[in-house]
């Protein structure tokens, strides 16, 4: 043993040394992420639906996000995302996540973005586009579907990754539960006055280089059109990624899409509409990417197939299909800063001319390095 130790004049065994992954501190990991954009719109009244989208011609502060995370104790993790705008601050998310439940289960409690679909529970710094797909703003709300509540999830005992997620959250908020109570929160008298969300997420490693993520989501809850009137959302999402890992490469290609069918009970009828987006992203080098996105939202129709028009109190003007095509290029000086040039043509069915927009968006971040979800 002494002879062996003599050979190791460099790195030597230091069994009792504390972990040196980071300076020792009980303070949370904090990051600040700012998104600003210069925007131009051909229309005086752009139809951006996202709460953090550029909305005026000129300079826009999309958001300043303060992200904090830490370990509460052996049982819970803490996460918070607080969003600042020029005019106020809001708690986007604050929740505890269990660390040690049995049978591969997990609970989240607090205010959180629901796991409906794919993009909803992500943040702008993780998006491939400057703005939110309008279909999500239309159906879920400009801030994404979120609410105070509880979520349970489990990894199902099958050989491939399959996660079942169920949550109960408050159903109010124009920007957070738009298809449910929305701005007219009628309160909770019964358990079904909450929004229920169920999602099944499956991942298939097609090979080392090819990945496929498929989700099914359902959300239901009360809407404000009348007592016992409810809304239901049915969605599927698909994410495919090609990223060579069996050989060295900085490039990758991804294809992502979501399809949402929404049904809303209104007095004596049901409104139904279809909403979808699909996007292609090609990161062709370490620092550069190109992306294209198409979005579509049909007009809401009644059970007899006629246009909902005024019966759709959320979007009475939406009496024709709306489609938008966006193209962008992104440059990352480092992973902590990002410059994105994006243009879009918005073919709004109830407007005579398409709306055009151009954004030059800049994101910059400091603080703790966050982990990127897939």
């Amino acid at each position, binding site marked *: 043993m002494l002879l062996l130790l003599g050979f190791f004049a460099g790195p030597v065994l230091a069994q009792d040394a504390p972990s040196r992954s980071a300076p020792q501190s009980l303070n949370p990991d904090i990051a600040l992420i700012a998104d600003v954009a210069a925007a131009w719109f051909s229309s005086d009244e752009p139809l951006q639906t996202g709460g953090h989208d550029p909305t005026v011609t000129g300079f826009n502060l999309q958001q300043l996000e303060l992200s904090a995370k830490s370990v509460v104790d052996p049982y819970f993790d803490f996460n918070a995302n607080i969003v600042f705008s020029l005019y106020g601050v809001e708690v986007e998310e604050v929740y505890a996540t269990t660390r040690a439940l049995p049978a591969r289960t997990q609970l989240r409690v607090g205010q959180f973005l629901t796991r409906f679909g794919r993009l909803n529970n992500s943040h702008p710094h993780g998006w491939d586009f400057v703005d939110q797909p309008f279909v999500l703003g239309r159906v879920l709300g400009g801030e994404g579907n979120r609410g105070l509540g509880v979520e349970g999830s489990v990894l199902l005992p099958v050989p491939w990754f399959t*996660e079942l997620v169920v949550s109960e959250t408050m159903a109010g908020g124009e920007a957070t539960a738009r298809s449910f109570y929305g701005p007219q929160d009628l309160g909770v008298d019964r358990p079904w006055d909450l929004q229920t969300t169920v999602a099944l997420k499956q991942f298939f490693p097609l090979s080392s280089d090819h990945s496929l993520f498929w989700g099914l989501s359902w959300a239901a809850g009360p809407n404000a059109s009348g007592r016992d009137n409810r809304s239901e959302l049915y969605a599927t999402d698909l994410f495919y990624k090609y990223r060579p890992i069996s050989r060295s490469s900085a490039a990758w290609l991804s294809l992502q899409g979501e399809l949402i069918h929404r049904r809303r009970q209104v007095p004596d009828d049901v409104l139904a509409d279809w909403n979808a987006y699909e996007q292609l992203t090609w990161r062709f080098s370490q620092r550069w990417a190109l992306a294209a996105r198409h979005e579509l939202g049909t007009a809401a129709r009644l059970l007899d197939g006629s246009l909902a028009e005024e019966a759709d109190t959320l979007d009475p003007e939406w009496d024709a299909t709306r489609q938008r095509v966006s193209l962008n290029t992104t440059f990352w000086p480092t992973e902590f800063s990002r410059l994105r040039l994006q243009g879009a043509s918005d073919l709004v069915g109830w407007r005579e001319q398409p709306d055009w927009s151009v954004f030059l968006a800049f994101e910059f971040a400091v603080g703790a390095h966050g982990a990127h979800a897939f």
Partner: protein
Amino acid sequence: MLSFLLSLLLLLLPARAELRVVASVPTLAAIAQEVGGEQVKVTSLSMAAQDPHWVDARPNLALALSKADLLIIVGLDLEIGWLPALQTGSRNAAVQTGGRGYLDTSRFVNLLEIPTGKLDRSEGDVHPGGNPHFLHDPRSIAPVAYGIAARMGELDPANAAAYTARAQALAEQAAERIAAWEAQLACLRGARFVGYHKSWPYLADWLGLEIVEHVEPKPGIPPNPAHIAHVVEAMERHGVPAIIEMAYTTDATVDQISARTGAKVLRIPGGVHVERKETVLTHMEEIVALLLPLCTGSTP
């Protein structure tokens, strides 16, 4: 009656003989496999062809982690961009940071390039705790192996002696090979090299190399023309014979610099190719074989 039923249930449950070990990088997976032998089943979350800073947190990796008894990582924030998402998604208390099944191997080695003074990212993508690329120094194999053996022994006391014995065997083999490699590469002591990224301080420390410049002006920052010119000038001034880079580096700048200076490009495998059943010592042999021609003056 209840105890009888419980005993029956235990008998019906399949006996799990293997310790399930997940390693963040394939070199740690290879060491864990040698230490654990048939008593362990080892999975690597990344492959040798991947840059360990940039691994996709694919959900199937969380699934593997959900079943793990032990997670072994390099640490020093090397995996910080992707591993925490997998740990949370795994729902496995054992592999959470600080859990009984979480092992940060950076604690077993003396670290180099620990930043001093004020630290911020104006210096590039810095690692506040020190340079994490210590696995390039074969002298780290023994302390890491012993550390892994000790933790395996805590989790699986019945086989603790076997783990320690294998770690010792690996350490002895490594010591023997290290002595031979040092003799073969003694000519490189004092030789000057250029590295692409700051991946080489431990290799340099072991072999007495001097890394005079890096192609990246700062860690994680691709080179610009002015810096490339500076590197070329430094290489010509110091008579640098080779540029060392990880095989997973994709920047073609290195080839441009090589063409201008006549320096060789040594593409060092980023880790053990466990998928080809390589071991950590055969991996180091490959690295030595790449360096050896610099002693003889022939092309690697």
